[in-house]
Each structure stands twice: as structure tokens, then as C-alpha cells.
């Protein structure tokens, strides 16, 4: 059940998600904008308070008709005034926040907000806590040790569904970055660039529920390699990837930067391909919060949101990338040499094979958590057997990815938010239609579903 259900729809059930499928689709078609949605959330709250039991609400709506009901309730409750209040910048409920991060460039907006003062500007005192791995981040978010955290884009979906952990409703406020990952191979594979010959090789990804895992699986599967049987994929925290590559524990990894570039810089590996070449504009990491925390601290959430959105807007401008590289390089944050970060952020980099490449959009910062991205992630979770049975893709993603909220906050800050996803999802030449996710999954030759 979502706050965004239409409470005046006699058919929909406010107690469970069953009845909302049709109405959600209708709303999508009608095009919902941020104000209307937040208004509806309020109306839902009021109607729920009046009729805590669904059966009573349905009886009432059937008896008087939804228009009459709306008018009657509006006369009793100043919905308009309430809506206006919800949109004002309120006083933050919690000033001192603990935000977790993994030291990778994906978290750039989240990290740079501290040294560059974006948090301060919003009246927040944020302590960024460097964390050793994704499993630990997950536990610390679920433990409520962190108020908000840097998460891999699939993690909030997995945690909300209770896949690989206990279930806890999560929200994704913004996507942190797009692209910005790469497949790095050990130097001894310099002449072994054809994935069809990769049988028996060992690869690392940062976490099971990561774009890295799904993209690597997708990539090798497209070349006829079964990622579960023909190669070994193991979970290694990003900071330990270079050390493992050097030690020969793994043949390569699909990992986050700066560790791809770091492998090149340390002359232990080369960049086989950038993930941008697989899917230009794929999401990677996100800023995640517990749904309950958003409810308890709406103004704090909005302030945190604005800070990170402003940072993302600054990061999106290529002219600022060098400044940012310098701001996030110190030991307190990424603890990396500036030249490595510069190569990642500016896209002018050495590939480890003696070439200088220039790919300005090696990493991008598009903060809007488009729902279609979430659906693609779920489709891959289904494909590889992490999700069993019927998956109601859109319902799940809509509960987790706060796309309308993101657009609304961007508007508040005067940041231009695109009305629709700027790029269609095309992964290795294959277009993806979020409305036909099941057919998409069924269309793959190698799958576990």
C-alpha cells in the first residue's frame, strides 16, 4: 500500500497493494506531477485517518460517490493549507546526521558535499563514515546506525524485498552516478580480450546486489558464457580488488572506480572496457534511506536531498571535475592519489595498454531515480534467480524509487529536471521496455528464471 494510491477510488485497497495496479497505470498515463502527488499523499492520509478500515471506506465511497466524498472531506479538512505546509522548507528535525559511504567515486556527490559545504548550507552537520564493505553498510543501515547511506542502486530494492537480508522498506532518494564502472583485467590477459575464451576465469564484483554483478553476468552471457557455471564470480569489497588482482587471486573484476584506474596506475591491470560501452547511462549507486526515517524526519530528508542534488548538479559540469577530484582525494574521504581521481572524473585516462583515451562521459551524475532503471534491475534479479515467482516490477520500484520527489526537490533548487528519461535503456544493443519486463527476461538464452 502506498501513500500515492488514490484514496477516492472505491476499487483500490488502502490496506494492500492488490487493487492498485490498474489505477497506477492510469495515473502514469495521465502524467502525475509532483504537487498533485504530494497532495494525493495528504488526501490519502486524511481518508485513512477517517476510515481506518477499508471496508468502511469502500461502503462510504460507494454510497455517496467519490466526488461528493472529496468535497465533503475537503470542507472538513483544510487540505489546501496542509499541502502548502508540506511544501515549505521546514526546520530540520535532526541536525547531526551519520551517513555511510564506500570510498569510491560513485559516491562523489555524497562525499564532496562535506568538504565543499553543501551540507552546511542546508543547516546539516553530516558525519561521513567510511565503511569496509556493502554487507556492513546494509547492516548498519538496518541497525539505524546510519541515517542515510551510499548504497548500490539494487540494494534498496533487495532490502525492501527482503532478498539476502531481513525485509525493511527503503527509499532511494537520488541515484548518485551513471556509468563510471569498468571491467579491469590482469595484465597477463592482455591478449585474451574475447569473453568467449574466458571459461574458468575468476572475477570479482563488489556485492551480489550490484549493477556490477548484473552487468558482468549480462556481458559474459551475451558471449555464451554461463556466469554461474563457466566462470567464478566472487564478492570482494572494492578497496581490496586491486590487491587481489595483484596477488593473482582473481583474473579481473567489474568494479567501481577509482579502483579500475588504480589498477592501471599501479601497473597490475588494464581497462578492458568501460561499462558505458555496455549500457550508456546505467545507474550505479544511490543515496538510500529507510522509509520510516523519511516519515519521521521529512524536513531533514528534504534538506539532505537538496544538498546532494546541488552537489550532483555541480559534479555534472565537466569544468568542475578537477576541483572535485582534489576535494575528495584526502585520506578522510577516498584516500587516493589525485591523478587517479582526475582520470576517472575527467575521462582522459591511460588504459593500461599504452593508449591515452578521452571519454568525457566516463562517469555522469544524473540524480533522478527513474523507475525504468529499477525495473531493469529487478528483471536481472529475476533472470538470475534472486527473485522467484511473479515479480510486480512497477509496484515494487514505485515504492522504493522516489522519482517524483527527486524532480520536485530539483525544481525547488532551480535545477533543470528532464521530464522523461534522457536516454532509452539499451544494453549491448538490446532495447529494454519497462512495461514488458517478463518478456525481456524470457528472451535471454542463459538464465536461471
Amino acid at each position, binding site marked *: 500500500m502506498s501513500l500515492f494510491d488514490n484514496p477516492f477510488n472505491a476499487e483500490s485497497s488502502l490496506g494492500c497493494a492488490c487493487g492498485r495496479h490498474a489505477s497506477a497505470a492510469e495515473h502514469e498515463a495521465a502524467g502525475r506531477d509532483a504537487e498533485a502527488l504530494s497532495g494525493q499523499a495528504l488526501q490519502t492520509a486524511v481518508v485513512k485517518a477517517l476510515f481506518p478500515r477499508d471496508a468502511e471506506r469502500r461502503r462510504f465511497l460507494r454510497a455517496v460517490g467519490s466526488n461528493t466524498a472529496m468535497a465533503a472531506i475537503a470542507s472538513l479538512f483544510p487540505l489546501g493549507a496542509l499541502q502548502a505546509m508540506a511544501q515549505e522548507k521546514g526546520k530540520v528535525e535532526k541536525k547531526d546526521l551519520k551517513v555511510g559511504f564506500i570510498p569510491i567515486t560513485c559516491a562523489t556527490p555524497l562525499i564532496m558535499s562535506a568538504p565543499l559545504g553543501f551540507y552546511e548550507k542546508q543547516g546539516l552537520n553530516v558525519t561521513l*563514515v*567510511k565503511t*569496509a564493505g556493502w554487507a*556492513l553498510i546494509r547492516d548498519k543501515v538496518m541497525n539505524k546506525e546510519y541515517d542515510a547511506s551510499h548504497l548500490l542502486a539494487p540494494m534498496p530494492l533487495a532490502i525492501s524485498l527482503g532478498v539476502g537480508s531481513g525485509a525493511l522498506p527503503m527509499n532511494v532518494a537520488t541515484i548518485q552516478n551513471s556509468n563510471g564502472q569498468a571491467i579491469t583485467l590482469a595484465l597477463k590477459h592482455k591478449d585474451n580480450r574475447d569473453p568467449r575464451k574466458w571459461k574458468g576465469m575468476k572475477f570479482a564484483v563488489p556485492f551480489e546486489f550490484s549493477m556490477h554483478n548484473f552487468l558482468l553476468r549480462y556481458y559474459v552471457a551475451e558471449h555464451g558464457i554461463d556466469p554461474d557455471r563457466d566462470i567464478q564470480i566472487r564478492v570482494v569489497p572494492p578497496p581490496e580488488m586491486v590487491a587481489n588482482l595483484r596477488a593473482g587471486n582473481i583474473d579481473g573484476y567489474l568494479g567501481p572506480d577509482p579502483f579500475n584506474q588504480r589498477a*592501471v*596506475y599501479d601497473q597490475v591491470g588494464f581497462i578492458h572496457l568501460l561499462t558505458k560501452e555496455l549500457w550508456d547511462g546505467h545507474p550505479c549507486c544511490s543515496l538510500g534511506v529507510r522509509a520510516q526515517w523519511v516519515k519521521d524526519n521529512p524536513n531533514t530528508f528534504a534538506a539532505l536531498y537538496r544538498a546532494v542534488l546541488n552537489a550532483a548538479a555541480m559534479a555534472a559540469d565537466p569544468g568542475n571535475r578537477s576541483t572535485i577530484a582534489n576535494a575528495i582525494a*584526502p585520506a578522510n574521504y577516498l584516500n587516493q592519489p589525485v591523478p587517479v581521481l582526475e582520470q576517472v572524473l575527467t575521462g582522459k585516462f591511460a588504459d593500461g595498454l599504452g593508449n*591515452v583515451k578521452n571519454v568525457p562521459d566516463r562517469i555522469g551524475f544524473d540524480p533522478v531515480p527513474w523507475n525504468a532503471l529499477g525495473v531493469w534491475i529487478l528483471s536481472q534479479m529475476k533472470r538470475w534467480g534472486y527473485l522467484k515467482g511473479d515479480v510486480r516490477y512497477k509496484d515494487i520500484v514505485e515504492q522504493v524509487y522516489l522519482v517524483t520527489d527527486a524532480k520536485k526537490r530539483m525544481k525547488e533548487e532551480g535545477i533543470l529536471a528532464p521530464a522523461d528519461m534522457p536516454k532509452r535503456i539499451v544494453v549491448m544493443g538490446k532495447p529494454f521496455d519497462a512495461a514488458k519486463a517478463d518478456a525481456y527476461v524470457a528472451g535471454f538464452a542463459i538464465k536461471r528464471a
Partner: protein
Amino acid sequence: MSQRAKSAILSCLLLAVVLLAWHVGTLPKGGAAQAVDPEYARLMGLDKPKSDGLPTPAQMGTTIAKQLSDPFYDAGSNDKGIGIQIAYSLSRVALGFVLAALVALPLGFAIGLSPLIHGALDPFIQVLKPISPLAWMPLALYTIKDSTTSSIFVIFVCSVWPMLINTAHGVANVRRDWLNVAKTLEAGTLRTAFQVILPAAAPVILTGMRISMGIAWLVIVAAEMLVGNLGIGYFVWNEWNNLSLSNVIFAILVIGVVGMILDFLFGIAQRAVAYVE
């Protein structure tokens, strides 16, 4: 020349040999620089000497001097001086160790005095004792729901067994004659426990505590590498991130020195309670 002086000279010689081997092993390889594109060389960081790779003893000396010159700096929540990191680790160890002592000493007494309790608890102790303390970490994080408390719990778990077993052993093996003397003098149970058994078993109990402390110091480094967020283990992990081997080696030396000091302190305490029969 006394035996002691000879040993000292031999130690110094060994150190010199190790340092020399290290120095020779890390001499910069004089391979002819390949003709590469200067732009590529700049991006690869080949134009300047790099900080990574195995450091030479001289570089190591600079690192040590730099770290020790300002051991208490605070450059943000994730970057603090080595002194502060050590303090965090020591406080966790101390807390876990004290908690373990509070449980292990009374329980050990009970086990040592009563063959019934000994028989009842022994199977549990035998199963729990060999479990690596770090294996408890995921479970601890899940149930305790706090990472700092979890690492203290891990220290508790690893230091409780040697203390428990040594206390039980020490108490059970107090000389019968002394207990009989206490009995003929009509000393009460409490008085016997504190004035006869405790002093008699103290050396064995302290040996247990010394072993526990050694293990706790070993485990805290691993626990902090796992959980992160300040402490000497976190320092190692953070420098591993940056592949800065000189800082990692520095941390290893510091861990060794601190462990040695802790052991030394327990050695003093042990001598204080020792007695000659």
C-alpha cells in the same frame, strides 16, 4: 662479556642483516625507461617517483618520523592520527576484556570448586572455545545492532575462555593441605575463597589473563578491519585502500610494540602475585 651483552649484540646484528636485505631488495630497478608517450607517462604517474610498492628502509624511516611527529591530529571523521586510533582500539580491548574478566573469574571459581558445575558446563565450553571470535561478527551485528558493541562483544568472546579455563584450573588445584588448614582454623567459605584460594590460584589466573589479553589484541585488529570506523585495524584497512605499504608496515610495527607493552605489564602483575611454596 656477559651472556646478556652477547645476546644484545646478536640482536643488533640480526636487525642490521634484515635491514640490509630489505634495502637491497627494494633498490629501484634500473630498467631503461621505455619510450612512451609523455602524456601517457604523466597519467600513469611515471614522471614522478610513486609512493606505493614496497618502501625502502629510508622511506620507511620518513613515514615513521612523519606519523610520530603528529600522532594526535584530527583531519575529519575518517582520518585521525595513530595515537587516537590506538586509543580507540585499546578502549575497545579494555572494555571487552574487563567484561570477560567479570564473567570468567566468578564462573571459573565456581567450576573449579564444584565438580558438578564443571561436569555440567564442560561440554559447552569445549564446543564454544575453539570458535574463531570473528565468526561471531555477522551474528553479533545482526542481533546487537551496533557495530562498536559488536566488536567489543567479539573481544569479550575471545578473551573469556583462557581466563575461565585457567581460573577453574587454578582453583581446582589449590593444595589440599591449605584448604584443610583453613578448615581446622574454622575459616568461613568466603574467607577461604578470598584469603586462601585466591592468592593460591592467582599466578595461574593471571597467566590466563595474560593469554587472553594477547588474543584480544590480535583479534581487535581483525575485527576493526572488518567493521571499520576508527581504531588501528581501520587504519591498516584504510591504508590498504590506498595501497600505501609504508603506512601498513608502520601500523604493523605499532601493533607489535603495543602488544609487547601490554604483555610486559601483565608480566609485572604476574611477578607481583607469584609465591614460593
